[in-house]
């Protein structure tokens, strides 16, 4: 039996994790837990997948989610294929797509683009990444994964590791976790890639956190690793030095508890060595798989099916 929505989701947009209350996060995760493939649920509905910049995982997982519920997918990947390349405004593109589709999923390199499209059209819009700003369905997937393994989203000790300055996934995750109780964050990063003050200000007084440059993974329920990007460093030597200090290898994993879960939004390059994949704590491929039920639940709820 299909679970009925407990909150009003029909027709709303999903642009930023800031728009989500604790109750909404819990409601969505509960639906994601229940949802199963159903080729009738979204039959006849069309999802426009507007990827102005490419993305393997997010695009495929949204398409998979829609198809598993019987819906259809139209769209493009890369701005070259769109009328934007001919000089059409994003707002005009959105107004046109609105006439063809029931829901828009979009990724765009400019921050705020998804909010602009949501303000322009009357069908629901899901932000699948707007520049360095938000990627809410990644955060919901992260929370879903944590909840699946720990059976709770309160009372957790969570380590965020790597590039905490530019990594949007860690910003959104930290903000989402601030909706829950008894969360303690350990912010592990090189000095020049620390969590931005604007994010810390939102955590102040809500979530206790410590900042450290040491790769201390002891006594944590979740270790969330992000990639340190070479292009963020003016000096290549400095990058090599920092990169090596934040590689999660078998030795670093000796610090993990048996029930710690190791997450990564992927793609990884070399920040988690491949031999770690076999450890029971490594959950990043299950994390990416969890993106499908989360997106299935979201599509169904927003489309009011």
């Amino acid at each position, binding site marked *: 039996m299909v679970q009925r929505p407990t909150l009003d989701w029909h027709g709303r947009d999903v642009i*930023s994790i*800031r728009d989500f209350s604790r109750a909404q996060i819990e409601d969505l995760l509960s639906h994601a837990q229940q949802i199963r493939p159903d080729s009738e649920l979204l039959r006849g509905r069309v999802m426009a997948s507007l990827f102005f910049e490419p993305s393997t995982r997010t695009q495929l997982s949204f398409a998979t989610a829609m198809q598993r519920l019987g819906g259809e997918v139209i769209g493009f990947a890369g701005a070259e294929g769109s009328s934007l390349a001919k000089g059409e*405004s*994003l*707002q005009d593109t959105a107004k046109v797509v609105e006439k063809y589709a029931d829901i828009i999923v979009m990724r765009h*390199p*400019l*921050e*705020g*683009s998804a*909010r*602009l499209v949501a303000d322009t059209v009357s069908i629901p819009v899901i932000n699948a990444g*707007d*520049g*360095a*700003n*938000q990627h809410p369905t990644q955060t919901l997937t992260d929370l879903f994964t944590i909840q699946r393994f720990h059976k709770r989203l309160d009372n957790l000790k969570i380590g965020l590791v790597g590039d905490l300055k530019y990594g949007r996934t860690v910003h959104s995750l930290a903000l989402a976790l601030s909706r829950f109780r008894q969360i303690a964050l350990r912010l592990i990063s090189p000095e020049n890639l620390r969590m931005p003050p*604007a994010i810390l*200000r939102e955590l102040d007084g809500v979530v206790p956190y410590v900042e450290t440059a040491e790769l201390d993974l002891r006594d944590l329920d979740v270790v969330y690793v992000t990639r340190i990007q070479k292009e963020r460093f003016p000096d290549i030597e400095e990058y090599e030095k920092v990169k090596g200090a934040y590689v999660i290898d078998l030795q670093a994993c000796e610090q993990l508890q048996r029930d710690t879960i190791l997450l990564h939004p992927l793609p990884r390059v070399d920040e988690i060595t491949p031999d770690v994949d076999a450890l029971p704590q490594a959950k990043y491929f299950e994390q990416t798989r969890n993106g499908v039920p989360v997106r299935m639940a979201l599509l169904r709820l927003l489309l009011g099916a």
Partner: protein
Amino acid sequence: MNEELKVSKIKNGTVIDHITAGMAPIVLRILGITKGCSDTVIVAMNVKSHQIGLKDMVKVENRALAQETVKKIALVAPHATVNIIKDYKVAQKFKVELPSELIGIVRCPNRNCITNSSERVPSYFTVESKDPLALRCHYCEVLVDGASVDILL
């Protein structure tokens, strides 16, 4: 000795009083008063004020303020009062007030924000805090504090 500031009255126009000390030059820019302005403009800076310690003041002849201008002044001088002068008398007096939303008033400092692209969309900020001033871009969600506010002139 009377320490009160004595400056000439204007016949018709606007007096902006209780401007945060040191901000009068920015208020003049907001008012669009530049070289070549032919109306009488009186500027006082760093004068004593019972209410805010030190203050600036600007008097401009033959000028009424648009609502947008008042919003811009509220961003740099939140305690300012506006006096509308008609025939040497105060015809109307009000305090500037920062609205909860600012559309087309402040430039987003994020160069990668959609409002700084070729897309035709005015900047849009919500006021998260008035004191200290904190604005959040409706689109890219960047938080801007008072010191970083870049008013569109």
